[in-house]
């Protein structure tokens, strides 16, 4: 049970007071988003595009993705860099937490009463000391409404 393959390392971060996690293998990097160019006519989840070391990154505002209140003005966001289907994305979050190594068997399925929007984006939940860690389903997170409507 103490073998590495039964554990997954998660990058944890908080959005609107809730702790979330993504497997470290899915996270390219963590950066401070700067000079985000807003994209007119884009969906509300799209915070804009930015240049990260020569790559164009599409920034996704996780607060609007989760339909949470907008971040207080002045509060700076952090970004989780994701690579998906050859494209770069930056998930704008409130703050980055520590990397946790958690046993796979401890991942619990979504509580039945988990908010529906959240449940749709989550693969499961870890019960940590004093708080819950919601593990995000990155494919679902990147499936935006605007895009589906246009397709």
């Amino acid at each position, binding site marked *: 049970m103490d073998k590495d393959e039964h554990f997954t390392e998660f990058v944890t971060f908080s959005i609107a007071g809730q702790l979330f996690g993504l497997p470290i293998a899915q996270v390219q990097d963590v950066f401070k988003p700067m*000079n985000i*160019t*807003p994209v007119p006519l884009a969906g509300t989840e799209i915070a804009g595009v930015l240049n990260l*070391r*020569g790559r*164009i990154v*599409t920034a*996704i505002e996780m607060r609007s993705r989760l339909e949470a209140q907008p971040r207080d003005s002045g509060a700076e966001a952090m970004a989780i860099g994701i690579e998906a289907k050859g494209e770069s994305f930056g998930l704008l979050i409130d703050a980055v937490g520590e990397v946790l190594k958690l046993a796979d068997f401890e991942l619990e399925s979504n509580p039945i009463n988990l908010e529906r929007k959240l449940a749709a984006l989550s693969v499961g939940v870890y019960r940590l000391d004093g708080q819950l860690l919601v593990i995000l389903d990155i494919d679902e997170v990147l499936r935006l409404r605007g*895009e589906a409507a246009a397709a």
Partner: protein
Amino acid sequence: MDDLLREFLTETNENLERVDAEIVRFEHEPNNSEILSNIFRLVHTIKGTCGFLGLPRLETLAHATETLMSRFRDGMPVTGDAVTLVLSAIDRIKIILAEIEEEQGEGGGDDSDLIEVLYRLAGHARVNGSPASDAVDGVQDEPASPAPADANFAAREQNASERSGEKRERLTSYSIRVQVETLDNLMTRVSELVLTRNQLLEIVRRHEESDFKVPLQRLSNVTAELQEGVMKTRMQPIGNAWQKLPRIVRDLCAELGKDIELEMHGANTELDRQVLEMVKDPLTHLVRNCADHGIESPPERLAAGKTRSGKIRLSACHQGGHIIIEISDDGRGLDIERIRALALQRGLLSESDLAAKSDSEICNLIFTPGFSTATHVTSVSGRGVGMDVVRANVEQIGGTIDLKSVRKIGTTFSIKIPLTLAIVSALIVEVSGERFAIPQLSVLELVRTGGEHCIEWIKDTPVLRLRKALLPLLHLNEILHLGQSKPDHGFVVVMQVGNQVFGLVVDGLFHTEEIVIKPMSSKLRHIAAFSGTTILGDGAVIMIIDPNGIVQALGRASPVLARTPEAEAMEGEGAGKEDLTPLLVFRAGSQQPKAVPLSLISRLEEIDRGRIELSNGQHFVQYRGQLMPLLCIDARTSTDRNGMQPVLVFSDHSRSMGLLVDEIVDIVEQRLDVEIASEQPGVLGYAVVKGRATEVIDVGHFLPQAFADWLDQRDARPAPLAPKVLLVDDSAFFRDMLGPLIKAAGYRVHAAASAAQALAALSSGIAIDVVVTDIEMPGMDGFALATTLRQDPRTARIPVIALSAMVSTDAIHRGRRAGFHDFVAKFDRTGLIAAIKEQTDELHAAA
């Protein structure tokens, strides 16, 4: 050196390099057929290309080698001697190549010794006589033993391979092959370098006296050059994709017994290497297709009265951010009836579907999978690689393919490939504080607004007068739903997309910059206004405007746009709808619909209720840099809620007022008969619109309310000097509507309900400066009135302006003959005022 020759040398040297290794294996495994065919193929290629390039010495040698190789392929045992001989031949080829590179000619060497031995071993007697063939006869009797000859070769070869080694090194410096991926990575790194450079520049700027200043300046320049250089590496002239076509056409001519000339234009048009690679095959296929199916045989051509030799024309050019490649032939054109029949026979379409299709749509059916028009399969085309594959290939790189065909005249294929991944020159513009890139290719010119070039409005449509042409305008901030821009000074980017020329209004212009188009994120690809993203020199990411996406907005900028007076007049002529009036139906206060002629409204706006200000008991809103008074049509129209409030904007020349309404319901076009007059102020009367009793609003009632001085100000002018307009119209509605408007423009108005009343007024001695008359009137019509006025010496000098629902050329001619000075469409409010002004000004000038 000729590009073609250079490419041949590079390619052949590379292949020889590979074959060197193969040959060593060949020696060990002389019966390995795979190695044999590899070498055979190379030699065969050299032979073929030499023939094309006009290198007979190399061709002869390669041919002899090929002959021997083909014997091996046929099963002749491979001996060590034979391998040595083939090696010698290949080395000789290298020598000749080296000589070609050095002298750009084959040199005067003689290979007959080697050739003879090759043929002898192959067991062939040489058929065609060459100077060398005489020498053969002497040796032919000797037992086949190439050994003595080999000794000679060995010395020469050693010498030669040294020389060729040295030469090849030189050749590689001409060009090398690099993976596109490597270039992409390089590009990314350079972008990072640029970013870092900019950060450094920023830091140094803060420190006045820095030792870093000078070296950093140098670093900056080098970085810029590096960036430019790396960008250029990806670009290739399209001619590179055409190089092999002359040869292909030549071969086809021989094979098909046709005579075809290949013309190529715009070979220098540059496009991205990757795109180039992908367009190569479709192009080749189309050219083959033209040669095979398009161009007729010489007898057929002569019979059709054409020149003996057919022509295939290949051209490429940049157009609006795309590259257009056209392949046209002057052949027989597509057989539309045959395509129809085939489509039916293959079950692609039903008879009724086909009947509904135009000829050009039918032509495009050849791109459908499973379609081939060739009646017989030739070796050239019709081997199952159909036009559907061509289309698929073109579409794969985001392009489109189209064809035009005229029977007996020829066929033209146009391929349009977007410049995705390519570098374009772009104009960087600013609107509402954001920067955007507009591909320079679609920009015709730039105009600063204000002064001579100011933006004017035809009803709801902004236009710019540019060298006597009216240019439709689009505001970029409106298209992109950005905030208000600075209206006082801006720029118009005059753009062309296809045949459509239009102006895009922006706040500011920066420089032009060579930008690398980066594909759009999949999350943003649905936004038609943008074609991609790019990273600017300062590291910022900006969106690239897609002119094609923008031009779509021309059609739907506003509902009124499509309803210009011209359009109405034209419709009126065609469909007998001259009595139809476009009406805007809305609700305000009550549930009962209200209507106002659309022509009176200059804009429909939605304003944020939060922006409505109250001053002195009057509502105002900041609108286009001015305070616009707002009125409620009905006191019950609520203004206290939050959110957006629809507003009808009415504009005079310099002033606007807004009428607050609850909801805009519809725009209908119908005959306007005000059936019941109303006593209620602000309501002209009631009409039946779409089956419902509808209040017709009297705009004239509201204008003075908005500006207490709207009328006073004008009336303040010395009354006797204000020209007097005699307004003749049988419709009370129009009299009531136009009267206040003419008054508002500063004229005195005398209204008459018929021609008879008008004549009576004139003869009663009222001084009239201008007559404005309706044409269609019961009893005496407008034409008759004008004629009568002309005939009376007292009234002959009074200008007459005709108001007509239909402004047809015929009506204008008739009007001119009758003595009308001007013709104005009935709903063209601004036009009417302008016409009155023009006529009265002339009057004053004449006086």
